């Protein structure tokens, strides 16, 4: 078993935090599309203060990758350039749509509802692109590392690739009702989540040579626990705590990454020989420790102001934002 290097743990930690944030946006997207009226009270007040932070964590993760494995950048740039550029266009579209939705005045051309739905659709597509890229790096299907190419058809033709993405989408859809406390049949989130989990988990096992299989027990338990607690009225309050829920998502993601390490591309390659020079790793480690302490303090202040002063965990938003 390969030892877990500090820089790998840091990278996995950053990705887990990023994924915890983007997944709450993906859950918000399904609510905005299918239950808009309810979302104006339960979803929008939550996502408005955090969508900027999601973007910041995305950059954090991208830069950490650049420092961790710079020699892989040409491969990523050539193999995935089409998807990266589409992602960039959508990313600007996402930010523009939500900031305009927040501040737009009443007019005949476009409503807040339409803008939030545009944001939701774009978020879905962005989520799909992220899933495709990461699934491709895990399974290696359609990827030719030496030729620096990626063939989408070959990727799609491999069923576990599709199963992992579709299963994850169903899972996110199921958890959305729990996370945002939407008015649905209380058993429905559990049923949908379990279906999504089975499809995603079975597919995941076929994607790669899972190095530490027993690690997957943790995300499986955590994922099922959330909708189960949601069924029990006395435990519902516990799981509707958004800080706890996001921590659960981050932990689950971290252990999924840990189960794969150090394998990538369907077990045909490992990440360790690609890591950056040690002098740079030491400096980025110091920077992460100092920056991490600052981030911890900021997060504490954020939760203190956003959650403990206002127990609902929602922003004191100007009226025009949610109307």
């Amino acid at each position, binding site marked *: 078993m390969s030892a877990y290097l500090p820089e790998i743990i840091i990278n996995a930690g950053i990705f887990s935090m990023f994924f915890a944030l983007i997944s709450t946006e993906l859950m918000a997207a399904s609510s905005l599309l299918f239950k808009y009226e309810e979302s104006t009270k339960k979803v929008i007040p939550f996502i408005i203060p955090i969508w900027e932070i999601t973007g910041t964590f995305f950059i954090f993760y991208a*830069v950490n990758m*650049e420092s961790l494995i*710079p020699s892989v950048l040409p491969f990523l740039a050539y193999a995935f*350039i089409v998807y*990266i*550029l589409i992602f960039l266009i959508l990313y600007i579209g996402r930010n523009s749509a939500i900031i305009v939705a927040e501040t737009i005045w009443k007019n005949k051309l476009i409503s807040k509802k339409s803008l939030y739905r545009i944001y939701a659709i774009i978020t879905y597509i962005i989520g799909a692109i992220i899933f495709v890229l990461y699934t491709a790096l895990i399974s290696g299907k359609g990827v030719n590392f030496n030729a620096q190419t990626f063939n989408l058809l070959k990727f799609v033709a491999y069923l576990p690739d599709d199963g992992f993405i579709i299963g994850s989408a169903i899972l996110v859809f199921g958890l959305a009702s729990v996370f945002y406390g939407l008015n649905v049949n209380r058993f429905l989130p559990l049923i949908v989540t379990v279906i999504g989990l089975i499809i995603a988990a079975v597919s995941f096992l076929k994607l790669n040579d899972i190095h530490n299989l027993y690690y997957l027990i943790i995300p499986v338990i955590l994922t099922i626990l959330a909708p189960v607690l949601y069924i029990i009225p006395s435990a519902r309050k516990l799981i509707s705590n958004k800080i706890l829920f996001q921590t659960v998502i981050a932990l689950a993601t971290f252990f999924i990454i840990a189960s794969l390490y150090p394998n990538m591309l369907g077990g045909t390659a490992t990440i360790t020989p690609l890591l950056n020079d040690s002098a740079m790793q030491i*400096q980025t480690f110091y920077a992460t420790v100092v920056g991490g302490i600052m981030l911890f303090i900021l997060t504490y202040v954020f939760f203190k*102001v956003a959650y403990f002063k206002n127990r609902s965990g929602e922003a*004191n938003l100007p009226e025009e934002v949610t109307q």
Partner: protein
Amino acid sequence: MVSIGNFDRFMMGFTLGSHILIVTLSIALSIFISVAEFLAIRKKDLYYYVLSKRLTKAFVIFFAVGTASGSVLAVELFSLWPPFMVLIGKVDILPFYYEVFAFLLESICLVLYFYYWDAFKNRYHHWILSVLIAIGTVMSAVFITLINAFMNTPSGFNIAVYKATGAVTDVNPIAAVLSPSALWEVTHVVTATVTAGMFALLAYFAINYLKSREKEQKHVYSLGMKLAIIMGTISVILAGLTGDQSMRMIMTLQPLKYAAVELNYFHSQALAPEVLGGILINGSIHYGISIPGLQSMIAFLSLNSTQVVPGLLSYPKSLWPPLFVHLTFDTMVGGGTLMGLYALFLSYLIIRKKKFEFKLYLYGMVILGILAEVVYDSGWVTDEVGRQPWIIYNVMTVQSAANLSPSVIPLGVAIIIFYLAVVPFTFYFAARVLKNDSIGNELIKEKNNTDFVRHDIPLTKQDRDIPGSGGKR
């Protein structure tokens, strides 16, 4: 036909140019809002309070789009210039890494500052957030400029070995961060950015002052003008001083770039003339004004120095950057000087407690705001084009670093078109949001706010002409 390498260059330049338009305003706004809120709390002044609150709405819009365009640049760097980012990743990734934390500081504090505006009973606690936002915003600019300084004067690895073999050895990440040009480049870029943003804000206030009919509106905009003038004047003076030092540094560390921006069509020369304007045609300079000895005098601060300034003819022509950088340099220096003089004049008016009632002054402020952007962009073009054909000076050429995948072109065109729509829309939208929520409405909303009061508004000339006017609301 445009090569893919040149397309990459154009796309990068275009997206970066669009991004800095937004960023100059974001940086200036972060400082401006913090100062305005401090004055509001200190003086218990409702007008400063409304000013800071209004501008925060615009700041959030610019931040949202600026974040997106900044993210685009971060991803473009490795997708359009993979070999460049491999070298940066191995030698000089630290400033990017530091920048992320500055960015996190800015974004988390901004979320708290804007969305939880009323959650702070002690207003100084709220104000501290604005200081942290300003620190985060300015430090982001500092760290990104450190990368540019490395591109101009690379250090922190064995360059000779890299050029001979392509191997990256003897990496010293801290030496790469603190490259020889870092100090003066960072100080010049930051002060110039604040200048451009402050004068753009000044133009905005001036236009709205001209349009305003209500006394309280005019008062709020005149407060904005005063703050923008004071901070703009300080920063333009600092930008001039640091720019002067930057040129001396370039003369030593990037002599060919210096020769190009000064249009020195000679080998090297003592008592060199300063050429204002001018184009090099068939080996001679046309349409320029040559002032004997002035360049050497400015460079060495001496009337008869025997030291020489570098000239273009000492270098192979294939390594010359495009010589239009001389014109962009002259635009930057000439325009910057004009800006500085007008800013000093406006500051003089403030010291003498004169009002900005004379319309010519206000139109001048609008022109100043436009000129500031032209000057700022000219400076940026001078720096970037002046380094050509290198992406990292004397180490890696732009062409050798470019992503030559044909897929770049159609999607790159789509991104450019998208930017052409999004950037003007952002400015329009921010202005419209502020226009929709008038100052009068905001003052009414704050009528129950006991922390701040409506101080007496000083009399304007028009007020004095109206019998019985007390100058109060």
